Structure formats: structure tokens, C-alpha cells
């Protein structure tokens, strides 16, 4: 069974460590916040100018001056701090954010990522994605392994305009967990009930399989 979006988020949350500062992108990455282990101190950065993002507000308590980078109304946690966009991207560029989780349309076997533009279709812009991927120490991509047509999104090289070069460290897809290594995509874990053969068939980029590949346990 392929992982649900919630399971992808849950699996990614296992990469969190106490004391991490983390930037979560829009979509599946946002869900990771729901799986931070009890008692673990993780501070969420929102690149529009906040460290210490909390959950959505209770109904009726929305504050139009308090939003995240996805323009959603949010709250803050104790110890939070606001700052301007230059400082926000300054701390990102300086490598102070320990982990960045974001979505992707394509990832190449050398770690290039494409997630901002589909030529010919509407271009919405890269927002902060190019800054994040250019500077983050550790980037995990949350994505579907294939597109709706069943074509692999893990490629020898990206076909779409790239967002950043050689930056992705790990992918958690609906089918597998993979590291980006100098040799290509290294299969670490597979979704429960998904075979290595299926993953191999759906991975267009170079796939490295060493020994037994365990299932992700939930």
C-alpha cells in the first residue's frame, strides 16, 4: 500500500531531532508539524518572518497580522520571535535552519529539484523556495513517486526548470524512503507491501539497492 500524505509526514517527522529549527513548505510538509514527538523541542520557522509557529487559531481568534508563508492564519508558541524578510532569509542563507522539508515536481539522481515552474502553464513564482534549497543544510523532499500518468518523478535529470542544484538529501515518497548519494537514489525503506520491483519500475533515475530493504513501520 502506498503511503497516505499523513504517513509521508509521519515518516518525515522521524528525522526530527530535539533542538531542531525546521522550515516546512506548503502541502504535505505542513502536516509534519502534527507528528512532532511529544516532548521534543522543535521550532518551526516561517520564512515570512517568524520563529516559533504554533497551530491554527481557534475559530474566531484569527489575526490578519499573523500568517505563515502559505498565507494561512496561525498562532505562535512561547519563545516565538518576529523579524523582517531580510533577517528571515539571512538566517536561512547562514545555515541556521537545521532542516527544510518541501514538495517537488521532480528530483534528479544528483539532488537537483524542480518545483516552481511548468513552462507554458501559469507561472506563480518561486517564492522562497530557491533561497531555501540553495542554503539549507538538510533538505527532505515529500512527494509522490510518480505523476498522475504514472511516470516517475525521480529522474536521471530534471526536465522542468530547476529550483536548485544538488541540494536534496532525502526523499520520502508514497512508495519509499531514499537518500541522494553520489551514486544516485539509494533505497532505504519501502512502503508496507510495496515491492522493491515496483519501486525500481517507478524510479527512472539510477536506483541503488543494497541487501534487504525494510518496510516502513507505523
Amino acid at each position, binding site marked *: 500500500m502506498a503511503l497516505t500524505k499523513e504517513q509521508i509526514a509521519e515518516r518525515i517527522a522521524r528525522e526530527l531531532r530535539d533542538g531542531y529549527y525546521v522550515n516546512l513548505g506548503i502541502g504535505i510538509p505542513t502536516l509534519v508539524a502534527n507528528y512532532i514527538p511529544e516532548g521534543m523541542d522543535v521550532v518551526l520557522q*516561517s*520564512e*515570512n*518572518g*517568524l520563529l516559533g509557529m504554533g*497551530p*491554527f*487559531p*481557534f*475559530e*474566531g*481568534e*484569527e*489575526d*490578519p*497580522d*499573523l*500568517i*505563515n508563508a*502559505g*498565507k*494561512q*492564519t*496561525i498562532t505562535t508558541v512561547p519563545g516565538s520571535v*518576529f*523579524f*523582517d*524578510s*531580510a533577517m*528571515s*532569509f*539571512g538566517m*536561512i*542563507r547562514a545555515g541556521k535552519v537545521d532542516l527544510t522539508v518541501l514538495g517537488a515536481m521532480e528530483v534528479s539522481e544528483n539532488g537537483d529539484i524542480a518545483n516552481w515552474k511548468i513552462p507554458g502553464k*501559469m*507561472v*506563480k*513564482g*518561486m*517564492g*522562497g*523556495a*530557491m*533561497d531555501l534549497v*540553495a*542554503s539549507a543544510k538538510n533538505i527532505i523532499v515529500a512527494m509522490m513517486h510518480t505523476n498522475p500518468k504514472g511516470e516517475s518523478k525521480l529522474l536521471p535529470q530534471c526536465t522542468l*526548470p*530547476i*529550483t*536548485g*542544484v544538488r541540494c536534496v538529501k532525502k526523499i520520502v515518497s508514497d512508495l519509499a524512503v531514499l537518500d541522494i548519494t553520489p551514486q544516485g537514489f539509494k533505497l532505504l525503506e519501502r512502503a508496507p507491501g510495496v515491492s522493491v520491483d515496483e519501486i525500481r519500475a517507478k524510479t527512472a533515475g539510477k536506483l541503488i539497492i543494497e541487501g534487504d530493504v525494510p518496510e516502513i513501520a507505523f
Partner: protein
Amino acid sequence: MNKVVSGAEAAIHDISDGSVIMLGGFGLCGIPENCINALVKKGVKNLTCISNNAGVDDFGIGLMLQQKQVKKMISSYVGENAEFERQLLSGELEVELIPQGTLATRCLAAGYGMPAIFTPAGAGTEVGTGKEVRNFNGKDYLLEYAFDADFAIVKAWKGDTAGNLVFKETARNFNPLMAMAGKITIAEVEELVPAGALDPDYIHTPGIYVHRIFQGSNYEKRIEQRTVRKR
């Protein structure tokens, strides 16, 4: 030093056809609503607008797009706007998309008198095409130039008659940066107080950067994505 003007119309009186203007805000959060409305009313055209986003169809910079007042947008993210899309696809509107951190830092550079900065954002991508690339410590950086805007229009929470500004929560975003970057900086504030009423330790934008200030009115503060949880 009389920086206080009567209102938005007076504040923007010399913004004219072809002006390059910066507008603060992120999404619809912290945008200079009063000045945008005044610009729509004034009907100036062929503007180059530097702003992280382009508003929505019927609010923010979207209102200026409806009036076809904008020749060029320099932004990082321009979704959520059908009229924008139409003008872009028809070639009526010129758009330069740049990374959000690059946008912020090019404002900072202008405010701090630095002609250019280096950032890795966009290196190796089409954003870097035609730009100078320089390698420091094994990593490629793009040389990006400071903005050169005729006017910066920002929205603050509080301001004083000396032009000092304080922003609230994430409505800060690009506002203090653009406030530093305009040749002429216009600030609209929710509450205008006398000089001396703000704590000098906690001012985000020093008044030296602000040329005109007024207390705005009828702030709508529209929410773009209302997300809540159940009690």
C-alpha cells in the same frame, strides 16, 4: 521636520506615470491599503511595482492591475490572481520573478548603501541566466543589485511624527526593508503618535528613512487563507 501629511492622496501626490514603486506586505498581510486605494483613484499608469506578491483580484495590488496601471511587476510569487494571469499571458504585463530572499536582500542593500550583494539563490537555475556568478568557498553565488526605487510605500502598526515605525507580528515582512530602500518613503500607520511616545529601544524603522507619514483609516485587513482549528 514636518513629515506628517494629511492622508494618502497628499502622500502619493507626486507619484506619476512611469514611477518605480515598492509596496510592502506579504500576501495581503501588512499591505498599504490606503495608498493603494489612492493610487487607483489617481489613476497613474505605467508603474513598475516591486512587491513580493500582486494581491488578489479585488484587493491590494490586484486593484491596480484591474485598472491596468502596472507596466511591470517584480515579485517572488504571483499566484491567486486571475486578472494578473490574463495580462501576463496576453503580454500586457511584464513580470520579473525573483527569489523571495533576493527580493528582501536587494531592499536591504539599497537601505544600507551596498550596491550589490551575493546570494546562492537561483545559481544554476534560469534565474541566474545572464547574471554574474562568483564562487566563494566552493559554492556559487549570484551578484544581485540593490533596488533603485523612486518611492517606497509601507504600512506600519504604529508610527510617530518623526517617522519612526513599529510593525506588528508577521505584518512586518518586507515593510521595514522597503522603508529603507525608497528614494522617498511613504508610511501609512494604524496609529500615529507624537515623537517620544514610542520606546526608542523597540523601533523597527528609524525615522531617518521615512519622509511622509499619516494615519490611515478603514483598514480591511483581509485574510487570504482563513485556517482554524476546532475548540
